[in-house]
């Protein structure tokens, strides 16, 4: 086993960008404020100096234009990393992503690959209010042709981009701005990670906590606390929101016979809806009771801290819910 190092989520992402830039000259990073400003959230700080303005490209406020340009550059043999500052602004680039990146391969009968990687900051937690706190993973997870990754851990922050760059097909990567300053230990030699499978982060036999993104550490924390009370929870990070790896969570549910889905996105028509549906379809007879979920409350996120906190599931909510589910 290799040594462990302490690293922030931000630094882990930055190192992954540096790795792929060093490895392949076709790679370049383009996005608003990725260069001179150092990245809206300081993720790319220092990279402009290291790689120069040709490879760390500041772009104008033109989400549709520059995302489309990234797709075009990918069509023409480059390997762009497009940073859409946050998912909140991605609606402006949605046509390019859904109608171009996701469909060109099929429309052209397999002729055109679109090896673009689009990274976006995502999620709630900084009191940025309604237009800046969206969790829109569900939109992207609905669209065939895309590979959709959610960075829920520091190892994935260090490795997912590296693996995504090998994909011949467009990859969307969600990074959680709330986690940027969080420090965790990862193996010193962390690098590329597998990007087809969900991951069991904690084994348990009493209930499956299925989650992704900002829910991952919350569920792990909840699982530890539940352990203190004699409840043995299994925690699964979905990681790949599309194409979804159902095998991992179905196996888990077949073992635990109970599941709770935890996500920060709005409840209706969400990732949790999809997970529940697949459990319904393929593990119904293994269930001891209905699968439940804790999701984002269906409200444009309000500004004040206490209302923001109330808008997404907290560790205490998970504890309460699990206890209610297991001890009726």
């Amino acid at each position: 086993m290799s040594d462990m190092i302490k690293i922030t989520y931000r630094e882990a992402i930055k190192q992954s960008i540096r790795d792929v830039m060093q490895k392949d000259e076709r790679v370049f990073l383009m996005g608003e404020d990725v260069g001179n400003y150092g990245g809206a959230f300081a993720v790319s700080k220092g990279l402009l100096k290291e790689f120069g303005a040709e490879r760390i490209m500041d772009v104008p406020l033109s989400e549709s234009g520059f995302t489309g340009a990234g797709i075009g550059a990918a069509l023409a043999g480059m390997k762009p990393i497009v940073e859409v500052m946050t998912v909140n602004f991605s609606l402006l680039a949605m046509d390019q992503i859904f109608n171009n990146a996701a469909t060109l391969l099929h429309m052209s009968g397999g002729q055109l690959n679109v090896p673009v990687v689009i990274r976006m900051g995502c999620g709630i937690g900084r009191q940025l209010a309604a237009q800046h706190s969206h969790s829109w993973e569900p939109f992207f997870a609905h669209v065939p042709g895309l590979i959709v990754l959610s960075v829920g851990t520091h190892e994935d922050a260090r490795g997912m981009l590296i693996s995504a760059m090998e994909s011949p097909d467009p990859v969307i990567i969600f990074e959680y701005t709330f986690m940027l300053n969080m420090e965790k230990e990862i193996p010193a030699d962390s690098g590329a990670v597998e990007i087809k499978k969900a991951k069991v982060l904690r084994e348990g036999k009493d209930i499956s906590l299925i989650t992704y993104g900002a829910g991952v550490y919350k569920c792990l924390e909840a699982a530890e606390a539940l352990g203190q009370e004699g409840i043995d929870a299994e925690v699964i990070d979905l990681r790949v929101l599309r194409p979804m790896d159902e095998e991992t969570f179905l196996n888990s549910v077949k073992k635990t016979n109970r599941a709770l889905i935890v996500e920060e996105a709005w409840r209706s028509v969400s990732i949790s809806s999809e997970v529940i549906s697949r459990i319904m379809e393929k593990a119904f007879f293994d269930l001891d009771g209905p699968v439940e979920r804790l999701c984002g409350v269906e409200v444009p996120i309000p500004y004040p801290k206490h209302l923001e906190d109330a808008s997404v599931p907290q560790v205490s909510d998970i504890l309460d819910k699990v206890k209610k589910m297991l001890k009726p």
Partner: protein
Amino acid sequence: MEKKKKLDSKEGQRLLQQMILIRRFEEKSAEEYTKSKIRGFLHLYTGEEAVAVGVIQALTEEDNILCTYREHGHALARGVDPNAIMAEMYGKQEGCSKGRGGSMHLFDASKNFFGGNAIVSGHLPLSVGMALAAKKQKKNNVTCCFFGEGAAAEGEFHESMNLAALWQVPVLFVCENNLYAMGTAIKLTHSMQQLEKKGAAYGIEAAAVDGMDLLEVMEAVEKALKTIKEKGQPYFLVCNTYRFRAHSMFDAELYREKSEVEEWKKKDPIPKFQEFLLKEKLITAKKITEIEKAVDAQIQESIEFAENGTWEDAENLTRFVYSETESI
């Protein structure tokens, strides 16, 4: 200049008071931010006060105003209650958006003040629609839309300019060109940096003005409004200005030289206007001190008001997602 002659002592003092109020209100806000009383993004307008004050003084109560997330100055110039603004930034129920919006989302329908819009360029189409409504209703008001030079790179700028000109609706587009979009200099966002030249692409009359000079802004906006009213057409006014402070409280300002900022500070619109008033004997030094004191008292009051404000009950989290009345 004609305008200078017209300005009487009372009006001059009122405008000075507004600029000082904005300046000090924001300085206080920054202080409260460091004390964590205000959170989220906080974008200060410091240095740009002559634009909001110069433009808004020319509008009537019926005119509509739409702004960006950098809108404290505009709200104050519009006469939105400073107490309600401060309370909003505190996230209290007594805020002008009932605490839901925070700094980026100040609204006051009673003053025809329509935000506080945090998707860059997202409010431009709204402004065209409001002007269209006015035309259909045969009202005589103007809709005034403020936005940054960064926003002018977005497709929404193009579509809105074209629609406004095509439909011949009374919109005043005010571009606050402060040379930076976050950390991205205008030379990296616009191939044509004399933004006023973009008017011709739509057959829209346009002008650029020194946005650091209140009197110049007043004169330019007078001409603009005259054109709009006489011709029933939109107008594009570019105010060249500069923000003295960081983009937001998160900004380390890596992208510009301190010396550049210092150079611009010499053009500070407040001392400039103050000197003009003194020179023209429209004000006395004593009166200035009185204004400053009154402003400080007002700001202090707003802080107390905000402190004493109440938190929305978390049970009401989902209010205002849908209307409480059944139909309109």
